């Protein structure tokens, strides 16, 4: 068990000595996961709205399918993306296999169901009376949707955060379509996988600590954002009469 302690020391050392390799892997990891989460949020929160605010045949079935996709295996998504973007695949002409771009695309596919599904849940948590109130005060369809989205803002943010969690922690897809190319498509998870494979458990653990630390930082930042909001509310709740 002594190597847990060693790894921890190593992790600290790697971080504070400014180890170029570790920093570039970390930066690449954040770059890819944040891009895929942001693009995913921009695409799938509106999709969630579209599904939630429209009534159509098979809506329930669609939502069930989306929820099922929460647990889509990352290697399976990796395989699909691989088939689509490999030289012989339908989008092979783009030649983006084994690039960060294709990793972002893959992760977008991965976070899509989660962001869409949780956004739908977030919206359905808002009383329908809110939307009707907006409409009765003269809101257009789009304006009324915006009101509901604003009411659900914290829950929607949570949806995006969960999506980010999935993106930053997955390894199967990154390995399959990214190829773990050093200095190019190597991210924390693939690096850990590789280092463990070649026996450098201490480095793996150190990278693992960094990954957890990143998750922690992001969570703390998001929570602080929410807390600030809550404090606002708490302050305004103080009775004035």
């Amino acid at each position, binding site marked *: 068990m002594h190597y847990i302690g060693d790894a921890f020391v190593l992790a600290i050392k790697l971080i504070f000595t400014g180890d170029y390799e570790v920093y570039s892997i970390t930066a690449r990891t954040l770059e890819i996961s944040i891009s895929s989460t942001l693009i995913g949020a921009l695409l799938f929160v509106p999709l969630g709205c579209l599904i939630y605010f429209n009534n159509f045949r098979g809506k329930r079935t669609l939502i069930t399918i989306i929820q099922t996709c929460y647990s889509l295996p990352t290697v399976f998504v990796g395989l699909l993306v691989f088939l689509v973007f490999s030289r012989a695949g339908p989008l092979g002409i783009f030649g983006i296999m084994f690039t960060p771009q294709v990793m972002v695309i893959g992760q977008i596919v991965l976070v899509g169901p989660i962001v869409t599904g949780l956004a739908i849940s977030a919206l359905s948590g808002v*009383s329908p*009376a*809110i939307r*009707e*109130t*907006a*409409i*009765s*005060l*003269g*809101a*257009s*369809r789009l*304006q009324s949707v915006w*009101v509901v989205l*604003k*009411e659900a803002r914290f829950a929607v943010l949570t949806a995006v955060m969960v999506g980010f969690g999935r993106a930053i922690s997955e390894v199967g897809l990154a390995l399959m379509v990214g190829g773990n190319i050093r200095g190019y498509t190597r991210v924390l998870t693939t690096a850990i996988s590789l280092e463990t494979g070649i026996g450098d458990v201490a480095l793996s653990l150190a990278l693992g600590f960094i990954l957890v630390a990143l998750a922690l930082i992001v969570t703390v930042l998001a929570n602080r954002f929410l807390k600030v909001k809550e404090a606002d*509310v708490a302050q*305004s*709740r103080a009775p*004035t*009469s």
Partner: protein
Amino acid sequence: MLKVERLHHSYGKAEILKNIDLDVERGEVFVTIGPTGSGKTTLLRLVGLLEKPTSGHIYFDGHLVNNSERQRLEIRRRLAMVSQKPAVFNASVFDNVAYGLKIRKENGASLRHKVMNALDTVGLSGYERRDARTLSGGETQRVALARAMVIEPELLLLDEPTANLDPVSTSHIEKLVTEVIKKSDMTVLMSTHDMFQGQRLAHRMGVLIGGEILQTGDPREIFSLPQSRKIAEFVGVENMLGGVIASNIEGIVDINVDGAVVEAISNLGVGEQVYACIRPEEITLARTKESTSARNTFLGEMTRIVMFGPLARIELDCGFPLVALITKRSAEEMNLQIGNRIYASFKATGVHVIKK
């Protein structure tokens, strides 16, 4: 201003509204009154263009409302609705009230001025920074009212705005509504299940029972001349004596009620099955049979007395049940006790005759 023609609405198999016709003039306060579940809210939702009717037409300011979203939005921007349990946005009181103005592209000083004015009108100055979700029921209702008024709608729809409030908040809201109506030429369509509230606020009333408008007229008319048993029951006519017209001489009828004869004014013919409706406050009580102009006097035994506030409600058995409402002071001075035999009188003009 608002015209509703042959409006029908159903949810699945349940028919909520049947053949509603309505005509509300500009500047008028029209109150639909009816028991809970009679379709009042549905009618307001249809007029507020939140739902589309199963069939029938709605005209707003002379224009037929059609199915085009664009036209519906345009019309919706000229009206505002306050519901029974208003929802507030998760935002400050100021932002709640400002919402309608913001989506009408109003901003800056004029927006602020209008919102502050509206808050002042509803007595919520100083509340603008409060989280709207922390307000009490009465305060929430006032925010909802301010939020609707601030956009200066041509037609204001109020759905039982005081149904969930205590008496103090209720009278506050009623006062506000009256003030607002006086100040502007707003047309108001309001629903309530409170007969007295209807009387206090309405220029005209429509009685909505079981999805149908059974009677429209000014509040006094509905209160004193209900057209059917259902309406009479709803407006609180406690004495409804079933009988048959035995004679009609120049509009003065004798109604045979289980052997007793009640004199009344009616143009219905002999043999008609009718109800003789007498409001409890129209009945006077006496220890001895006095000679008065009242055409109907019956001797009865007092079976029950209930005091509430300054009034005493007395039930008599005159061969048929009769309820009288007198002041507590009268009851005390007459020393009325259960079992006493007393005379109950009412004028022929105090009897309202409706067909069975």
